[in-house]
Every structure is written in structure tokens, then in C-alpha cells.
């Protein structure tokens, strides 16, 4: 293809913009709930501050600002006493509602002894916090849907990973619309790709075929090979994605739920997390199901490491230059912006339904050729005896 000359010939500059100065409104998953249920307060760096997560005696998980309003002690270094967290500095007791309940050495608690408390949700084995810079509680219709398999005997337990990424979290959200990177970065082969944004959800419908030339984890021949996949992945709010994923393997079909979620630490750092459960099937023993879940998690871990290598080195870009075979990056970001403005400043265009079906004809042709070339090169290399 020839470049268009003359007036379109100017060098295009990158507008790197600036990461937002506030953190998204919405439910954020802090990880598996289990790890916070050991009777100790936990320190979590999120939304530009330090939080303390603790379980009160009645089993509820609570999230408070970690810094004690008395003299600034770090509550996450304290102890859980009954339903409260006790500060290590002077033993002031703070309840999950953010109120100081007791000062053992004082006759009474002073006025205004209240700290910031985050609404929490302990659901399907995960702990969620509601972040809202305006301090409002979550609206009734902004929820995280239940995941049936998470509490079912017919599914494996969560295999869960988390890792820290030095980038603004918009990078991970951009992936929702980025079809081509699934081929180049993740060794997948998308053949159908569609996005739908509506309200506070953003969905990616993707079907794919196998990559016999490339998947590194399938090259040793000992594992099941992927011949296709069918995925419906939805962000429920700014950070929590549920992906209903069916893998077609040469050994049969595997039904999975993949979680892809994150929470911001600061404007240029986030914690990326992913979890997977696999449905047990008649053709698989329990042990085989667990192994499959572990193998898939390993594969997904590899996928995120591939993303992270890109993010670490790339620039933020507010004005990506797109071809017609790219997804709706601008419209996704318009949707994403709803979480960064006050609730009453959300404009209809941010939440109005938008659909984008990609034409995969050309990508599939090009990638088919590339796969064949790779396979031919490998076959030729295999024939050449090692020196």
C-alpha cells in the first residue's frame, strides 16, 4: 500500500496526555477473601493511600484508611480485638464503620472520631471495595454479578495470581478492544471480534482458532492443544472483568471462568490480578480438572507477562492512530471516562450503547499466511541436523 502524499505528509505527534489525578469510581477486587481472614489486619496500598483490611469477630471483612486519626499510627500493624482493629500506638479501637468505639485508657471517645471506611462485598470467594471519590455508597444497580461456578462443587477452586505493574491501569482496560494484539502478543488467533459498551459494562465477544505454530506452552507435545476458543468477557465497572471462556482442546472441551481485574495503587502503578476456575467434566477426573485449571492459569500468567513487557516500555498515548481493522479504542475510553467524573457529570455518550463488529477477513488472511510460514520454517529447521 502506498502512503498518501502531500497534505497528509506531516509527522504525526503523540499526545501522551496525563494520567487522571483521581481514582475510578466503582467496585474493585482486592483479591481472594480468604487471605484476609487470618485474624490479622492487612495493609493494602490502593487509590493513592494505605488501607487496612481486617475481619471482625462476626466474620465481616472491613476496609478502613490505615492511618489512625489519633496520632497517625498504622492500623495495619495493629491487632484485631473483637469486632475492631486496635492501633499499635495507643490501642484506640476502630470499628468497620470507621468509628472509634473505645479508648481503653480514656473515659470517653472524643467527637469527630471517625475515619474513612470503604463499603465492602465478600462474594464468590473474592473481596471487593467500593471506591468513590465523592464518598457516595454504591447505587443498587451497580453490582458485581454472581459467578455460579465459584461456589459449585462441579467447578475447581480459584487459581489466583497477582502482580504489580508500573503503568497507569488504562493500559489493561485498552486490551478489551485490541484484537490484533491477541495475535502478536498472546499467540492467539482471533477470527470473530465484537465489542458492546452499555451503561457501566463493556463486553468483548471473541472467537478464535488455534496457533499450532506459536503457543510456547504447547510446543513440548505433552499437553492438550487448543484448537479454538469462544469467549464473552465483560467489565462490570472500571476494573473487574468476568470472562466466560470455552476452550476447544484436542482432548475435548473445557469450560472456564476467567477473572481479569485490577486496582490502582497510584496513577502510575496498579495491581493486576487474574483468577480461573474450570468446570469439572465427566471425561476428566477431579485431579485432571485441577491440573487443567493450573495449566490454564499458567498460560494466562504467561499472557499477562507478555502484556506487562509491552506496557513497561510503551508510552501512554491519548491519540492512537487507528486502521479500520482496529477496535473502538476511542469509544472504549469515552465509556471508561464515566468512572473518572462525578456521578452527576456522567454524560449520555459515555453510557449509551455502542457496538463495533470488526471485519476479520483481512487479519485472518494475513495471519493464516504467517502461521503457515512459521510452520514451514520450523519443519525445515527440524530437518537440518544440528551442527
Amino acid at each position, binding site marked *: 500500500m502506498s502512503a498518501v502524499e502531500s497534505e497528509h505528509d506531516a509527522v504525526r505527534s503523540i*499526545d501522551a496526555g496525563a494520567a487522571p489525578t483521581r481514582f475510578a469510581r466503582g467496585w474493585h477486587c482486592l483479591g481472594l477473601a480468604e487471605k484476609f481472614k487470618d485474624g490479622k489486619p492487612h495493609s493494602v496500598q490502593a487509590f493513592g493511600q494505605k488501607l487496612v483490611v481486617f475481619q471482625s469477630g462476626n466474620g465481616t471483612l472491613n476496609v478502613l484508611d490505615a492511618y489512625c486519626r489519633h496520632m497517625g499510627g498504622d492500623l495495619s500493624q495493629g491487632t484485631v480485638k473483637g469486632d475492631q482493629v486496635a492501633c499499635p500506638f495507643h490501642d484506640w479501637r476502630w470499628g468497620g464503620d470507621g468509628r472509634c468505639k473505645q479508648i481503653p485508657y480514656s473515659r470517653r471517645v472524643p467527637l469527630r472520631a471517625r475515619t474513612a471506611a470503604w463499603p465492602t462485598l465478600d462474594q464468590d470467594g473474592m473481596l471487593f471495595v467500593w471506591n468513590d471519590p465523592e464518598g457516595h455508597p454504591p447505587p443498587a444497580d451497580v453490582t458485581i*454479578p*454472581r459467578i455460579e461456578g465459584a461456589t459449585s462443587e462441579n467447578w475447581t477452586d480459584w487459581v489466583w495470581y497477582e502482580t504489580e505493574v508500573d503503568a497507569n491501569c488504562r493500559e489493561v482496560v485498552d486490551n478489551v478492544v485490541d484484537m490484533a494484539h491477541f495475535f502478536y502478543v498472546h499467540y492467539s488467533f482471533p477470527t470473530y471480534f*465484537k465489542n*458492546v459498551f*452499555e451503561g457501566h*459494562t463493556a*463486553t468483548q*465477544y471473541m472467537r478464535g482458532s488455534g496457533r499450532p505454530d506459536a503457543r510456547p506452552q504447547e510446543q513440548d507435545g505433552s499437553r492438550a492443544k487448543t484448537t479454538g476458543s469462544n469467549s*464473552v468477557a*465483560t467489565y462490570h465497572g472500571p476494573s473487574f472483568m468476568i470472562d466466560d471462556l470455552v476452550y476447544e482442546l484436542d482432548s475435548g472441551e473445557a469450560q472456564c471462568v476467567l477473572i481479569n481485574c485490577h486496582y490502582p495503587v497510584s496513577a502510575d502503578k496498579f495491581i493486576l490480578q487474574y483468577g480461573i476456575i474450570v468446570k469439572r467434566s465427566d471425561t476428566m477426573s477431579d485431579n485432571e480438572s485441577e491440573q487443567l485449571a493450573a495449566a490454564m492459569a499458567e498460560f494466562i500468567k504467561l499472557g499477562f507477562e507478555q502484556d506487562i513487557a509491552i506496557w513497561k516500555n510503551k508510552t501512554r498515548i*491519548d*491519540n492512537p*492512530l*487507528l*486502521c*479500520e481493522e482496529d477496535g*473502538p*479504542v*476511542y*469509544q472504549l475510553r469515552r465509556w471508561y471516562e464515566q468512572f473518572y467524573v462525578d456521578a452527576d457529570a456522567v454524560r*449520555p455518550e459515555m453510557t*449509551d*450503547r*455502542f*457496538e*463495533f*463488529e*470488526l*471485519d*476479520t*477477513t483481512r487479519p485472518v488472511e494475513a495471519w493464516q499466511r504467517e502461521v503457515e510460514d512459521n510452520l514451514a520454517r520450523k519443519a525445515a529447521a527440524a530437518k537440518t541436523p544440528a551442527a
Partner: protein
Amino acid sequence: MAPEDNRLTDGAPMRPVSCGQCGSRVLVRKSSWQQTSVQWNSEALRGCREHIAATSGPAAPAGLETCHALVATIRAATLNVTIEVLDDDRAG
């Protein structure tokens, strides 16, 4: 000013189409025979029967991948060139 999608500013914009079934007016863009963008507004969505069927009822909203009536309308509009296809391979 916020940066804009170069495909809309340098190529074709979104164009209005009314669904043959429910009359909902949406904006549509086709860069090729397979590629389709559809922009709804809340009024159009309230009128779409398939959307109502998919998001009401006791089951949790499943989300609607597509409205088949609208797809048929867009297809017809493409065939009679009410919507222009940017990269019309048929023209050769």
C-alpha cells in the same frame, strides 16, 4: 479538545438508520461489508424489542450481542446504498 478517532475524521462519519422493525433511530458506520459500528441512544434502546427481551425478566441481564432486526435493516440499507461502505470490494 479531546483527541478524536482518525477513522471518523479522515474517513466516513456515522450515519442515521431507522430499524425496520421498531423504528429506533441509530447511527451506523460500515468500513467494509463485515465491519459495523452502531451508536444507540437511550430512546432508541428503549424502543428495541430484542433489547427489552434480553434485559428484562427474572434472569440476570445477559447482555445483548446484537439486534437481529437492526442487522437486517443495516444489511438492506447497505445493499441499496443508503449506507455507503467505505471499502467496497464489490466495486472492484
